[in-house]
């Protein structure tokens, strides 16, 4: 049997995803522009008082990151589902959890990582005190992969629905709540000069948990969506 080795298949999938992302780069920019616009709207809506903005900065940046991530999640499996690639992936005999993990890794690299890179600019914009910026970065680095991992389960569950986007956000936002609470509390603690390692540790634990469990849940959801 000449089924390609797992690593070959995994890398082939990653390479294809980056190539596709590059061909559709306009689509990739949309969530980032959305993120910028949402964060820009807050000073206009709540008033430009520096103190007020500094207080709400961690929450605003994190909520905007959640929204931007869900925006890009809907397309995670949709095109593969619609053109029959997903069928072939399931039938290929390669472990579906690994296929799901490859898609999630690619999604984080093209959709999550840019949010992390953009976040210092957003912090400056929202007048977040300097002490908070490194912690915001850390929380995003370990937190945005959790968004992709948990979101992938929702994306897999809703992939067979014509307009699954709204349902997807209803499904995954409640699951993002603990992450949001921990991350914003870590950043606020850092700004107040309090210890924040506990919160970051819990997010890390969440990341490890999601990394080990979410690919399997996603694989099962994909199989359900196909039948």
């Amino acid at each position, binding site marked *: 049997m000449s089924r390609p080795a797992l690593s070959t298949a995994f890398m082939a999938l990653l390479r294809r995803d980056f190539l596709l992302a590059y061909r559709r780069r306009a689509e990739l920019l949309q969530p980032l522009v959305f993120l910028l616009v949402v964060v820009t709207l807050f000073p206009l809506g709540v008033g430009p008082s520096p103190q007020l903005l500094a207080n709400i900065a961690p929450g605003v940046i994190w909520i905007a990151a959640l929204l931007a991530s869900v925006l890009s999640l809907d397309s995670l499996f949709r095109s593969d589902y619609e053109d029959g690639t997903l069928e072939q992936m399931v039938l290929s005999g390669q472990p579906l959890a690994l296929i799901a993990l490859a898609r999630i890794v690619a999604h984080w690299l093209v959709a999550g990582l840019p949010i992390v890179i953009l976040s210092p600019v957003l912090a400056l914009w929202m007048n977040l005190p300097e002490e908070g910026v490194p912690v915001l970065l850390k929380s995003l680095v370990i937190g945005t992969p959790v968004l992709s991992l948990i979101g992938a389960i929702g994306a897999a569950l809703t992939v067979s629905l014509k307009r699954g986007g709204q349902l997807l956000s209803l499904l995954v936002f409640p699951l993002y709540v603990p992450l949001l609470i921990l991350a914003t509390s870590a950043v606020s603690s850092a700004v107040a000069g309090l210890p924040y390692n506990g919160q970051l540790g819990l997010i890390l634990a969440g990341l490890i948990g999601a990394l080990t469990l979410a690919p399997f849940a996603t694989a099962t959801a994909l199989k359900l969506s196909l*039948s």
Partner: protein
Amino acid sequence: MLSVSNLSFERYFERVFEPVSFELGAGSLLLVTGANGCGKTTLLRVLAGLLEHSEGEINCDSRPLYAGHNPAIKDDLSVEENIRFLMNFMGQRDDSGGSDSNSGLCQNVIEIIGLAPVAQQEGRTLSAGQRKRCSLSRLLFCDEALWLLDEPYSNLDHEGIVMLDDILKDHLKGGGSCVMTTHGSLRPEGFELQECFMTSGRYSSEWQAA
């Protein structure tokens, strides 16, 4: 190779097709015919394992290759990139090297399926027949013994049909077997075949040798 007994499939508690039984040995071709909507595609999807059958038994000694209506072609990738991805992901006859040693094989496949002139074009620019040819390229580089082909002749021109018949003949000669659906107007020419006729939700057990 494949033996099926009393196989049926229910969707929302309603039988899509009546129980089906057949035996398919090495080197043989089963042609499933019937009107639109009689459950041919569903039968193939059940055999492929994409749908869970409700009753009966499927005994299959290897993983089948399923080529359905969805071509699994990415609109944003060129023909060559599409085929190379499938090759690295789904199967390749030459397992010895990485993707580089495959480029020769990839070029060969593109030659055989007659897409050499459009190899660098994006998937979105292909005609329906070209898409079909591209999706049939899997038959050349995957080495599954059992093929499940859903309406493989649809959209193909005369040359394409001859090409597919040749590929199929080679496959059967090499001891492979194939289940093929067709709605009747286009049929494989010059094959020893078993035929089963499905009527809406019912399966006729009449066998004909052509």
